[in-house]
């Protein structure tokens, strides 16, 4: 077992877990191969015949809506001799034809046509496209379990994960969100786990994002995570199962503060939501706002943004993001969300580049950590203890809650990571 307890404890993890290629290989197998992994959203393939390409870990897959309207995830690899079927990032069609020998596959992944059929002696049904053993959706979010032994998606998400997704989707007057305005890929030369952690780390705002705070000082982050420690009522929450959030709700001073726009501009949306849900429920939704959370291992719910954390190598990650569009809301409002998304995430935005460079500097600092560990096992550790003594566990829900700046989120991540990597129940 490569990621054993000699590298992980409740208060610390060893830096080598971020840089060792053998750990990465094991992660691709255990975390991304044998667990539930986010693939995409069904609004990305709204029409029958629509498809987009993705990675399940490093395995290239196609997310497709087949001609019967079923959403599927299929290996992007011909079942004959393995050629890539789709090299564009998205497309639309009625079937796929492989360019090597012309085999055709339905969008459901069945082998349909074999040129020169005289030489073909096998059963077509044995030569469909590879696919995950389990596929399931929750409110349009499509998850896959390649191996098949990860239990149900419902179990994986748990009440905490489901509530986080609900909280986002319920902000739409129709209850539906749409991820249809394009994805931006941000290449970061650091380990994927650093991104899973830093996306949900409230402790770093005042330092990593000091320039953003200084140049655009009127964002709601001010109230949510800056200011005096005791004065800040925001929470960090471990929902169990590797899902965790930064809960800014206690600190919002106004309804819809998280919208980051004048109430005048937000008004058409607010009205639409009230119409759909009634004033009271709409009010409580607007007060709460969208979640800021990680669904283990690769889905970041970043308020009105969605990001996928795609591991590439032990020292390279792609952070893909798109903006959450609300159905039943006018285009002007949704375009404001697009502009906010451009400001917040992506290589040229005001926020994530500073997280990216921080992660890259961590990766460099840890480069020799496997070696220094061999030399002296007290070297190269990373601390996760912040707030361990003041966190509160709720035995009923299994949640752990604490101050928003506390490393509850990191510990939530690593507890699940340890379970998965060590094959524990």
């Amino acid at each position, binding site marked *: 077992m490569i990621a054993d307890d000699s590298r992980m404890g409740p208060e610390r993890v060893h830096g080598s877990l971020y840089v060792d290629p053998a750990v990465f290989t094991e992660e691709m197998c255990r975390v991304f191969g044998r667990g539930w992994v986010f693939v995409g959203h069904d609004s990305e393939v709204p029409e029958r015949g629509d498809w987009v390409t993705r990675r399940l870990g490093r395995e290239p897959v196609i997310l497709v809506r087949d001609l019967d309207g079923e959403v599927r995830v299929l290996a992007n690899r011909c079942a004959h001799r393995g050629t890539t079927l789709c090299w564009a990032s998205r497309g639309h069609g009625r079937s796929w034809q492989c360019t090597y020998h012309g085999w055709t596959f339905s969008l459901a992944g069945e082998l349909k046509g074999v040129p020169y059929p005289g030489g073909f002696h096998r059963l077509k049904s044995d030569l469909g496209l590879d696919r995950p053993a389990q596929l399931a959706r929750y409110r349009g979010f499509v998850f896959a379990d390649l191996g098949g032994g990860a239990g149900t998606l419902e179990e994986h998400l748990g009440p905490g994960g489901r509530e986080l997704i609900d909280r986002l989707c319920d902000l739409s007057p129709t209850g539906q969100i749409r991820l249809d305005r*394009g994805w931006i*890929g941000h290449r970061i*030369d650091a380990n994927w786990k650093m991104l899973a952690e830093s996306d949900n780390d409230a402790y770093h705002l005042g330092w990593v994002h000091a320039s*953003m705070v*200084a140049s*655009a000082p009127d964002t709601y982050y001010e109230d949510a995570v800056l200011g005096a420690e005791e004065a800040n009522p925001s929470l960090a929450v471990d929902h169990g199962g590797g899902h965790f959030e930064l809960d800014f709700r206690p600190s919002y001073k106004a309804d819809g503060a998280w919208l980051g726009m004048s109430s005048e501009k937000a008004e058409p949306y607010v009205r639409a939501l009230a119409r759909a849900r009634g004033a009271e429920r709409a009010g409580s939704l607007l007060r709460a706002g969208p979640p800021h959370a990680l669904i283990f291992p690769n889905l970041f719910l970043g308020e009105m943004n969605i990001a996928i954390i795609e591991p590439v190598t032990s020292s390279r990650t792609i952070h893909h993001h798109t903006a959450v569009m609300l159905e039943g809301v006018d285009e002007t409002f949704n375009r404001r969300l*697009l502009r906010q*998304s*451009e400001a917040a995430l992506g290589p040229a935005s005001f926020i994530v580049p500073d997280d990216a*460079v921080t992660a890259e500097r961590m990766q460099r600092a840890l480069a020799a950590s496997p070696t220094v560990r061999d030399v002296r096992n007290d070297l190269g550790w990373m601390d996760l203890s912040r707030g361990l003594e003041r966190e509160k566990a709720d035995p009923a829900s299994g949640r752990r809650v604490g101050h928003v700046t506390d490393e509850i989120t990191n510990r939530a991540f690593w507890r699940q990571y340890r379970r998965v990597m060590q094959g524990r129940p």
Partner: protein
Amino acid sequence: MNAEPAARVPEAVRHEIESFLFYEARLADESRYAEWEALVTDDVHYWVPAGPADYDPASRLSHLNDNRARLATRIRQLKTGKRHAQSPPSLMRRVVSNVEILSADERDGQYVIGSNLVLYELAHQATGELRVWVGRVTHRLRRIDGALRIAAKTVELVNAAEPLPNLAFLI
């Protein structure tokens, strides 16, 4: 894309335009933010699309899609000295080549210029690697009080649809 070869303008104007582009590139190379900012108009649009520039930037996500106000914020952020993604600023040199005046309205002093860009960036604040940025640049220039200014700049990176590393400098 333009079907036709470049427009004809007087040699002096052509030279002026080329000099302007080289000067702009030098300011960007050297992270001289304030001087670079002085070159843009009040209604500037500064755009790095996430693919070919064949869509309405209002309707989809782009890498960078600044109006004047957002560009001002961007430059303000860079000037704080705490923009870690550019602290210290990348060491850069740009090749601005194949300059073509694609259209010219001499009376209104409006020019559309196409050029190819190869930019080398030493990301010494981060991985230390030498990164290369390659693309097609379209400048819309406008003459204001006799001086050329940038009314729009669009940078179509050849890998615009691929994952990109930090693009926190002024491209």
